[in-house]
């Protein structure tokens, strides 16, 4: 799906938003498909799921998911949240992300949700939290800045 114009992709995002079909994003973003990213709206909140998959293991002994995959999932959740909730005139570009690893991520389904800390005209700052069984025991959090214009 690399032969796509920027206008076409923004149109896809717009249509997905109108239909509230959040999984449409994964059909166009190859890496989301690799992650198996599932996006659902629950009680007005966008929640992403990273399905349990052995290919994501980084520590075979515990076993635990790779830190890179956890970081990638948090970054992806931030982008999904922005695409689902903001009016966009161009694709947001990530400036930086800081991931805090709080607990080892078990070989289980992992969930994440993002919130805006500030939506500026040029830069959007977001916090993302990921958890497994218990939402009050986050496995990782992240703070990320995106350039939006």
């Amino acid at each position, binding site marked *: *799906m*690399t032969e*796509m*114009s*920027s206008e076409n*992709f923004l149109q896809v995002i717009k249509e997905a938003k109108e239909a509230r079909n959040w999984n449409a994003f994964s059909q*166009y*973003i*190859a*890496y989301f*498909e*690799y*992650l198996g990213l599932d996006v659902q709206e629950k009680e007005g909140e966008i929640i992403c799921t990273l399905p349990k998959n*052995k*290919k*994501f*293991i*980084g*520590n*075979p*002994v*515990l*076993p635990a*998911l*790779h*830190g*890179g*995959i956890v*970081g*990638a*999932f948090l*970054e*992806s959740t931030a982008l999904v949240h922005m695409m689902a909730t903001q009016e966009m005139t161009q*694709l947001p*570009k*990530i*400036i*930086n*992300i*800081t*991931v*805090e*690893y709080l607990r*080892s991520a078990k070989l289980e389904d992992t969930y994440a949700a993002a919130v805006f800390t500030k939506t500026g005209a040029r830069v959007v700052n977001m916090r993302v939290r990921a958890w497994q069984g218990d939402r009050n025991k986050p496995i990782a959090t992240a703070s990320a800045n995106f350039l939006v214009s």
Partner: protein
Amino acid sequence: MAEGFDISQIQGIIDAGIPQCRDIGVKVLELQDSGVTMSVPYDEKFAGNPVSGVLHGGIITTLIDSASGMCIYVKLKKYIPIATLDLRIDYLKPATPHEELRAFAECYRLTKQIAFVRAVAYHTDRNDPIANSVSTFMMQSTKSKPLNKQTVDAGDKS
């Protein structure tokens, strides 16, 4: 060259025991006390931008996290369980589609409990980076056996 480490041995451990690194094609290029270099090939299925085909930041994160952890083992000259505490990545410019991505990581401060690492991701020139990273790792994070003693069993399970 760090004592007891060679590239093919480490590559074998990665391929047998670290499914995520094997899955995205992580290769070990250099293992020096002063830093390690690893690479990942370009693959369309890891694109994050359907318009440009540029790799998703997640692939860069995984490569940098892997190289950052490995440079601690090389500096220590042994394997002990470590865990990433935090990792910051600044995306300096987009990766070029269809080009191999490399990461160079160096542990610039090592204490009993914490290791401090910096890393860059680039295509061919370390002085022209795509991403810059700083991270910290907790030493002896679990009581489990070192990685080179477990991968035989673990490889079977994965």
